[in-house]
């Protein structure tokens, strides 16, 4: 028995590197009867121009396009998220990118050092270490080097432990637990993309 149900599960984000016509199979996973299959999968949705930025495809656009094939199709969406299409130039490992990443690394290192020095001055770290040294060894010294230098190395170890708490296991193909920095970057990106999608949806009108 042939059914005319079309199941569509949209992806949330697609990144493309060159200007091209976006087809439905690029932006969504589709399950339907084999009679319509090729026609729906290769249906063009949007042409994306050169230039970095975002395009948003709304679910209603997909519904309109599929309706244009056959009005009797029963379209069902799995998920309610719109699809964001990002155009990004393909840089790869060019010389400029490496230089830029070195500059950023230097900047972050300086910032981190300045921040930890600010923090030490704020909470009067020297007297805290002096106290620890006094409690443990009973000696009163002006600058407790035997505590301060291991402490400084410990700060580096602490940052390392915080950001790399899972041992990397690349032998099996399962998805490993990501580092907290990756989660933070992903959640920041997600908030921004949600904003773009909502703005685009609210400014759209049916024609």
């Amino acid at each position, binding site marked *: 028995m042939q059914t005319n149900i079309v199941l569509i599960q949209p992806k949330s984000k697609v990144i493309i590197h060159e200007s091209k016509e976006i087809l439905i199979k690029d932006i969504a996973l589709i399950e339907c009867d084999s009679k319509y299959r090729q026609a729906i999968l290769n249906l063009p949705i949007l042409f994306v121009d050169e230039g970095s930025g975002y395009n948003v495809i709304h679910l209603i656009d997909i519904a309109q396009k599929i309706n244009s094939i056959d009005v009797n199709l029963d379209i069902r969406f799995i998920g309610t998220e719109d699809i964001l299409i990002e155009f990004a130039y393909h840089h790869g490992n060019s010389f400029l990118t490496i230089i830029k990443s070195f500059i950023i690394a230097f900047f972050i290192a300086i910032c981190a050092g300045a921040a930890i020095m600010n923090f030490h001055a704020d909470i009067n770290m020297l007297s805290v270490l002096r106290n620890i040294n006094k409690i443990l060894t009973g000696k009163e010294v002006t600058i407790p080097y035997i505590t301060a230098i291991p402490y400084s190395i410990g700060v580096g170890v*602490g940052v390392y432990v915080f950001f*790399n708490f899972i041992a990397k296991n690349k032998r099996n193909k399962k998805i490993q637990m990501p580092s907290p920095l990756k989660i933070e970057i992903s959640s920041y990106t997600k908030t921004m993309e949600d904003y773009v999608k909502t703005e685009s949806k609210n400014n759209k009108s049916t024609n």
Partner: protein
Amino acid sequence: MKAIILIIFLLCAGAAGGITISSLFVALDIIPRLNLSLKNRAYTYRWQNSVLLGCITSTIIYSLDIRFYLADIFSVLAGILYGIFIGMLAGALTEVLNIIPIITKKFKLKNNERTVINSLIIGKTIGALFFFLKLYFKELF
């Protein structure tokens, strides 16, 4: 009467300090993260109790000015452990303040977490060393 009021007042002050410390631990996700690396949820109560025990004992030792007269190696050990804790605190603060996502987004640096983390580590260590050795240089000259 005066003493009772004072005791109640000090109890409240101590409770405020304790709540601050524990909310710092919880809000900055330090214990949950350590728990993740252990891959076992059975020890959560033990960890709570160790925070409690550490706070109380260190407060008593600090306020009664108790000294232990141990060897220097214990001071080194305490320095390392304290440094690891402060490093994790600094990492958590950096993460909460959303600096790194904004930088990587602005400068279009994706998949460069290793570089960022390594530069954070180097910067923190050198900054901390400089803070203490600056005084050492001042002492020399």
